[in-house]
């Protein structure tokens, strides 16, 4: 961009510093809850229950995280992390595979019922899982999929966003490529594997980032179908760590778990920032 050479409307001197001060203040305010959670995860319970709690980290980091990860309160947090990872990757990969296939069918073939299927898939865009929880729960229970990975994953891959995204993208692939493939006598699936899939690489990666976070951050669905603590995901498991009575919650462990719950999605978002922003813009359009 040619912005470096102009600079007429950008701030300089004192104004520039003021702008930085504003931004830093904004960042600090936004970060405050995370910072406090981190501090709480490095001190002892007695530091917390005698307010005000310290604002600088203590020396219990290793102790708290070790006890959270390997013993936890109901179940070791390591187990919950593993469950979340399986669920998030399962949802992301599952959605990407079924949508790549169905978008390919819709764009590159003419077959009976094509428009009907297209509209049926389109309808699924409209209904978040929160709205149909009771009957979906009954279906999953009927299949005996409570407390299982398939029960966590399948109901959440029934959505059309990814299909639409790939359809839009496939429509931009030059017709000449398909024509050439057909003239060469290439079978459709060969064209799919050799041309379509490699060309969709960036879209697949961007979508993976978005879907991974979507899956990782699920709350209501795992809350309903995982009654066995061994199957809890980390995001829903945190709430289960609060005592039901009047006891003090074990804040250092809970906060260490909260920090652990946000590390994987933060790594994905910050580490793959470009893909993430692209995926965000693509999937919302």
């Amino acid at each position, binding site marked *: 961009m040619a912005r470096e050479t102009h600079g007429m409307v950008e701030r300089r001197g004192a104004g520039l510093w003021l*702008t930085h001060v504003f931004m830093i203040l904004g960042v600090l305010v936004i970060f405050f*809850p995370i910072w406090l959670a981190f501090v709480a995860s490095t001190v002892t319970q007695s530091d917390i229950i005698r307010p005000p709690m310290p604002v600088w980290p203590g020396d219990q980091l290793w102790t708290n995280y070790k006890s959270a990860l390997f013993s936890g309160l109901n179940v070791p947090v390591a187990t919950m992390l593993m469950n979340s990872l399986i669920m998030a990757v399962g949802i992301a990969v599952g959605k990407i595979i079924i949508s790549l*296939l169905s978008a390919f069918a819709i764009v590159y073939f003419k077959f009976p019922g094509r428009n009907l299927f297209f509209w049926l898939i389109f309808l699924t865009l409209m209904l978040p899982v929160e709205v149909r929880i009771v009957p979906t729960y009954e279906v999953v229970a009927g299949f005996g999929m409570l407390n299982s990975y398939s029960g966590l994953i399948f109901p959440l891959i029934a959505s059309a966003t990814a299909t639409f995204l790939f359809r839009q993208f496939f429509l931009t692939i030059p017709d000449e490529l398909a024509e050439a493939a057909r003239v060469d006598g290439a079978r459709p699936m060969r064209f799919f594997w050799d041309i379509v899939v490699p060309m969709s690489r960036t879209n697949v990666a961007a979508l993976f980032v978005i879907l991974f976070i979507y899956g990782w951050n699920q709350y209501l669905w795992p809350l309903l179908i995982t009654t066995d603590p061994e199957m809890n995901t980390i995001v829903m498991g945190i709430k289960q760590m609060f005592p039901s009575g009047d006891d003090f919650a074990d804040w250092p462990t809970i906060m260490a778990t909260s920090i652990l719950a946000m590390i994987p999605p933060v790594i994905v978002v910050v580490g793959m920032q470009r893909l993430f922003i692209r995926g965000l813009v693509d999937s919302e359009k």
Partner: protein
Amino acid sequence: MEKRVKFRGWLLPLLLIAPQVVVSAVFFFYPAGQAIWQSLFIPDPFGLSMKWVGLGNFEYLLSDRYYRASFVTTAVFSILVTLSSMIPALFLAVTADRLIKGSGVYRTLLIWPYAVAPAVAGVLWLFMFNTRVGVVSWYLGQLGYDWNHVLNGGEAMGLVVVASAWGRISYNFLFFFAALQAVPRSVIEAAAIDGAHFWRRFWTIVLPLLSPTTFFLLVVNIVYSFFETFGVIHTITAGGPQQTTTILVYKVFSDGFVGQDLGSSAAQSVILLFVVGLLTVVQFKFIEKRVHY
């Protein structure tokens, strides 16, 4: 838009589309149909049979004081979440846009909260405002303000709104920032040469150019506050006190799973279905417009 080149055959495409159709049918259309069907019945007290009541569940719901209150709660909640996530985001984006260097660093820092699950955000905010150990509530106490969101409905609402809006600031910031970067520099500079001050340029040029993004974010944030804030409410207030934070989605859950009132819960699902349909139509109408903008 259509492809001119098509492959022949019908069995292969049906096989390709089958996984998605099966998953959608089993986990989407069947349950959605079930919800509509169940909304027309009430189960007897022993759960042995279902009694047909036609639209009775809906009539009952619409005359139910708590359900109507939940509509108002949802409206207030979603408006507050939308405003308190969009205004700070716009402010930060405008500020970041004035920097030549370093805006990337701020962007990287500001997108963090987006990755934090609503339920985890709920726990973080609950911790700060906890009535016994919370840092913020303790300092408020020192100032003479007795914070208690467990008993005070207004404070409970404030807390769930802030916790829900927090992560959305990142999201809105990204979209506003991208839109601001796309505003042609020449237009802004022409106005600057004509002597228009920053705020004047902002109101008369930048904000109108941002309107497509703003409308888009309005719709998306309302959808978010309707459907994706369940985790925040469940962790912080569980709908209380006295249902002051029971939004519609939370009520579907609490009536269906906690209260075991399946007919009513199903009827609520159907009503929500219409709400989603309406929001989707608005969104698509708007996106169509945006293409021609």
